[in-house]
């Protein structure tokens, strides 16, 4: 088969354009990924969503939605601690406030609300009394920021374990959630199904 000059020129042009296209895509993908590096899995899924089970004098519909809850596995040292993370959304019409949390003594001695604060080149832990959640807004508890700290673990948190955490809200009251224990790395990658 004999190509005409015109066909060959067209072929060369197509090849060049294709090559340019391939490299444009190949070369740009890395930097895009980096830009997204620190984003948390914000409302990516509701795979472990739990709905409110109001204990007393509660509104008709569950106002608080808890998604992506997880706690960090621990090395198994003496008197160690862990942290729990989640995305808590207020589906109600009034502002609510997370004011505390607790676990059974068979899980840990204390639970506190904390935030990690960056000061210059240092990170520091600050205990907080609670977080307001506006209607329609989400409270993001994530590594390196706001988190539920679980202190004086009764036993090591092993990947695959789970425990019951009671969250206390000003409006919604007490909400019990089952918290799976996971290995947690940057970007919430250890959370199955929570990839962006």
């Amino acid at each position, binding site marked *: 088969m*004999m*190509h*005409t*000059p015109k066909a*060959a*020129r067209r*072929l*060369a*042009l197509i*090849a*060049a354009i294709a*090559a*340019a296209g*391939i*490299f444009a895509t*190949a*070369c*740009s993908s*890395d*930097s895009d*990924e*980096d830009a997204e*590096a*620190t984003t948390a899995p914000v409302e990516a899924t509701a795979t472990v969503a739990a709905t409110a089970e109001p204990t007393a004098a509660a509104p008709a519909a569950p106002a608080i939605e808890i998604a992506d809850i997880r706690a*960090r596995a*621990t*090395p*198994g*040292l003496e*008197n*160690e*601690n*862990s*942290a729990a993370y989640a995305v808590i959304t207020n589906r109600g019409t009034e502002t609510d406030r997370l004011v505390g949390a607790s676990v059974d003594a068979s899980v840990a*001695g*204390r639970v506190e609300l*904390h935030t*990690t604060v*960056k*000061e210059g*080149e*240092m*990170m*520091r*832990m600050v*205990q907080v009394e609670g977080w307001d959640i506006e209607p329609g807004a989400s409270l993001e508890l994530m*590594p*390196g920021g706001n*988190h539920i*700290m*679980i*202190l*004086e673990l009764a036993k090591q948190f092993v990947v695959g374990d789970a425990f019951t955490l009671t969250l206390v809200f000003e409006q919604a009251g007490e909400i019990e959630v089952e918290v799976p224990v996971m*290995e*947690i*790395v*940057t*970007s919430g*990658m*250890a959370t199955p199904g929570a990839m962006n």
Partner: protein
Amino acid sequence: MQRVLRRVRIPALVGIAVIVVALLFGCREEAPTFASPAMEPPARMPEINLVAGNGQPFQLSDQQGKVVVVYVGYTFCPDLCPLAMSTLANAYDRLTPEVRDGVKVVMITADPARDTPEVMGKYVNYFDPAFTGVSGDPATVLEALASWGIYPERSATGANGSYFVSHPTRMYVFNRDGLLRLQIAHDLEPESVASDLELVWREGND
């Protein structure tokens, strides 16, 4: 006939040349760059007399010839330190065996009063048995960190005498010559940490 062939060949050759050039140089501009800020000029690795988890003396400069990643944290740290160590372990797993052999991960405690060398050894072993956790005489450790510009501060003491300690946000990466090359942010994802470590390792290998 000859003429036709020649006319076919020239544009085809131009096309091939374009592809070859694109292959060779297409990524040159975007070619491997650090995700983390590089140090210019790089500072020298400090001499710190520490004790490893096995009770043996540990000196950072003894690791020279390897890329050394230093993280300063503490084992009672509930949020960032385990996150950083998990991220390092995940990044370390991503390296090829050859690069992994040339990378040493060291965690120095910012809380030597509670973190004995033994505790540090157990702690890092959980993340990766190849990692080294070091502590030492508290005054010596804190003095060494201070010489490096790191001043860990204790929080107010809470229930049961527990306290938290401030610690650096970044991981320090020294190249094979013992020079501080990168400071990796604590929230960099494992893929980028691995790629940064490999790039530093390659610098000494080219």
